[in-house]
């Protein structure tokens, strides 16, 4: 019998349906893998009993002939999604011990589709970070190591670092992520897996701890493109409880998957050739172009002239929204309360928030508060919104010449933990290729393309037109088929 944890979502779904194994077998195998991977610190809460209960239900449903789309499939849930009766922390001390009385729309959809929960996955605190070093519950370690004998712990990317690490280490076959400026795509690239951020509004934000409301978007991460399509179909959909949710039917992305790109024009944006980018990434990009050409696509050069302003605009808009979104964590109603002796209300706020938020969260709250302040608002926030409009226009103009864009996902392979944590600007630069898409609300995905000289995965990013996740997935599939990426991290944990 194959090792069940080597199976992806589609393989588990189909094998379970065919009677090759029970759902309980699957859940148990993954539960064991999770229990044996403490060294990766990918989980904040493990929920083996919930995974087993869902599996037992799936086994009953199979016997009764009432299978659901994800029956028998256990997954991980990023700890930014509120899960009823299961602690939800956003990896912050300020929410430690918080147990929601409600279920986020996206997680609820997945459970209704028959999926089971293996646990709540670690992340950068409030999804703020690109290396998973800002979690109150400790760094997540990537299962990957450099092939030069160096055993330095590497970053799994962020903010969905628990998700990427767990998938790459075969602790879960797939899991949810959220992406505000690259938090699905960059960790996927760092760990050799796939992840898609759908069009803003495809997935409900209801019940997801907010970071930057106008950018936050949930999406799936998994081992391959098909698995991403399957999960996304069961996450997306209109939600009247989210005013920014799109009232559109969910396409049958999996069924329409096709790696034939005939008639598609792929744009290569010249502004994404940045100084100091490793030659290997440039080479992979060229390889990706060749693969898409091979799949029948036509390659065109395009320009996204305002790209260089995207990162500064993002680091104004996202902190501005965050500074307001995080005001609710005040020690009054739930979560941490630090009430020094003789403290008044202001003292309680100060003590609670000082103790509850990590440094990166505080940094962004300060930036956000500053850029929204009287006298600075126009120079920063208003200006950043104008840039955002120009970025979106860049893409609109590009779509006159092409149907999708191909770029590297990140300007480097995974770096070592601690290497950039003292330099916020260097850390922010990691998002340079992913942020413009977020500002424009477009669908984008990262798929693994190959390994660098140190044996670390590199990802390629496909960006599509609004609502055209299908073309993005199809191009991802075309690369996946040609890249033949089978490398995996050797188990050391």
């Amino acid at each position, binding site marked *: 019998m194959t090792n069940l944890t080597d199976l992806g979502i589609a393989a588990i779904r189909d094998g379970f349906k065919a009677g090759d194994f029970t759902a309980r077998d699957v859940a148990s195998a993954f539960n064991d893998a999770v229990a044996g991977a403490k060294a990766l610190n990918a989980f904040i809460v493990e929920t083996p009993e919930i995974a087993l209960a869902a599996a037992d239900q799936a086994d009953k449903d199979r016997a009764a002939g009432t299978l659901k789309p994800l029956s028998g499939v256990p997954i991980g849930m990023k700890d930014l999604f509120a899960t009823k009766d299961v602690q939800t922390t*956003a990896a912050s001390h300020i929410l430690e011990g918080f147990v*929601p009385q409600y279920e*986020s729309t996206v997680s609820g959809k997945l459970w209704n589709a028959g999926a089971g929960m293996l646990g709540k996955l670690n992340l950068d605190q409030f999804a703020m970070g690109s290396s998973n070093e800002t979690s109150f519950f400790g760094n997540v370690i990537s299962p990957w190591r450099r092939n030069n004998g160096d055993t330095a712990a590497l970053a799994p990317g962020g903010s969905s670092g628990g998700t990427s690490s767990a998938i790459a280490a075969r602790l879960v076959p797939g899991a949810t992520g959220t992406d505000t400026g690259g938090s699905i795509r960059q960790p996927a690239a760092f760990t050799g897996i796939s992840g898609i951020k759908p069009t803003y509004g495809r997935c409900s934000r209801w019940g997801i701890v907010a970071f930057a409301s106008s950018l936050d978007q949930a999406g799936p991460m998994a081992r391959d493109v098909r698995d991403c399509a399957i999960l996304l179909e069961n996450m997306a959909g209109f939600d009247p*409880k989210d005013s920014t949710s799109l009232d559109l039917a969910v396409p049958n992305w999996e069924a329409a998957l096709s790696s034939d790109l005939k008639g598609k024009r792929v744009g290569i944006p010249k502004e994404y050739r940045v100084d100091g980018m490793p030659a290997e990434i440039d080479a992979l990009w060229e390889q990706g172009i060749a693969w898409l050409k091979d799949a029948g696509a036509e390659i065109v050069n395009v320009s996204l002239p305002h790209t260089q302003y995207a990162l500064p605009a993002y680091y104004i808009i996202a902190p501005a929204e965050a500074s307001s979104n995080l005001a*609710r964590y005040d020690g009054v109603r739930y979560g941490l309360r630090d009430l020094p002796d003789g403290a008044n*209300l202001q003292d309680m706020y100060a003590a609670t928030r000082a103790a509850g938020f990590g440094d990166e969260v505080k940094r962004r709250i300060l930036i956000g508060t500053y850029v929204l302040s*009287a006298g600075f*608002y126009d120079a920063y926030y208003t200006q950043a919104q104008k840039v955002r409009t120009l970025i979106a226009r860049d893409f609109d103009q590009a779509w006159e010449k092409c149907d999708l864009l191909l770029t590297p996902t990140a300007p480097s392979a995974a770096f070592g933990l601690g290497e950039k944590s003292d330099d916020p600007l260097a850390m922010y630069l990691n998002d340079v290729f992913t942020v413009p898409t977020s500002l424009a609300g477009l669908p984008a995905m990262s798929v693994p393309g190959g390994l660098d000289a140190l044996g670390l995965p590199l990802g390629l990013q496909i960006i599509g037109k609004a609502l055209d996740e299908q073309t993005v997935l199809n191009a991802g599939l075309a690369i996946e088929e040609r890249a033949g990426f089978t490398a995996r991290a050797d188990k050391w944990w």
Partner: protein
Amino acid sequence: MSESTYRIQGTTGEWEVVIGLEVHAQVTSNSKLFSGAAASFGAEPNTQVSLVDAAMPGMLPVPNAECIRQAVRTGIAIDAQINRWSRFDRKNYFYADLPQGYQISQLYHPLVGEGHLDIDADEKAGILEAKRIGVERIHVEQDAGKLMHDQHPTRSYVDLNRSGVALMEIVSRPDMTSPAEAGAYLRKLRAILRYVGSCDGNMEEGSMRADVNVSVRRAGEELGTRTETKNVNSVRFVMQAIEHEANRQVDVLEAGGKIVQETRLFNPDTGTTRSMRSKEDAHDYRYFPDPDLLPLELTEAFVEECRASLLELPDAKRARYVDVLGISAYNAAVLTAEVETARWFEALLKEGAEAKQAANWVMSELFGALNRLGKSIEDSPVSPAQAAELLTLVTDGTLSGSLAKQVFEKMLETGDSAGTIVERDGLKQTSDTGAIEAVIADVLAKNPGQLEQYRSGKEALFGFFVGQTMKAMAGKANPAVVNELLKKALG
């Protein structure tokens, strides 16, 4: 447009007062502005709180169309511009009664733009002519919760029932120049809100509160520095707050001081205001567009539906009462001042009462009785249908005015209909000339002295004979017939 005659007499001369009001009116709606929780008054603490109102992690606001509709209807009622495109902004500040850490409001693009309402002349109050008061804008926003400091010796409690309830902030132009004008504006605004049905106008329960902006200046000078007195919750208190604040400012200025732009609090027990915080301490609210909400775009059809849903408003109604129904201007003003009164009065007309007679009867008899009983017109023990029956009995001669009063009293006591009471108690008036003539003869015979005086020219005694005759007939004689026959008998 004439200015009011209101002036503050300082030791160095006269000062004018300039007043603007920001009224917070709670929108009448079953649920809150952005959540499905109930919005009614007086429930047990924290029983009307949704996950959204408590700002639980990941909760999102969804606009309640009914609240938007009510604000648009209010805007139409004050002839204001309805903005087809508006947007919600966050006003950020920390307080324990504000779960989100921000209030969702509309700073940059309010739902309703420039409008106005007219206040009436009131010579007694020093308002010499009717005056138009500009309304700069109406925006919708969330109310905060309530802190309770009297539940525990060292702790404060928070009640979130009000948290998220929809408010309209109605911002006037600084067009008022006396406490009386401000009072008239508030009363008129309250009447309009109640006619529209967008706010119950109940100031005691906090459904309507005013922030009062006051400054003083010498005639013809530039506007002075203003202060803002927050959350004043009755018309009388608003007028008191203005009076006190204007006089205080004059005292400061005449003593060589300067007015500080600041927020003040009104103390209803003393009728005075005191400083709460100065501009330097003012919050930086860091307003920015709420990214959880899309801009609010209204269709023409929605606005038209709002317009069509509005019933006749007080000014139009009053004009119609005068012009079409022939009711006196004073009566028309009183009958239309409150929507409940107008509604009752129009029900009375619908039951067949004649307008002028009905107006007089409501103004004197009904109001008198309600006043005595301490009841509002909605709780009147006599229904419009019952009142119409009573008035018909007067019109058709069955009852005299004084008999009608007696019957009405019995109606109030027993709840019986006028017809029943007339039949049962034999209160019908009589026009039987033979019977009346016999009584007159008897009265004249019994009062020879008065008869003598009358005939020698003291004609005022005519009323005496009418009274005696009516008394002898237990009030049931038709007064017109009595008059006529008495004149004949006294020759």
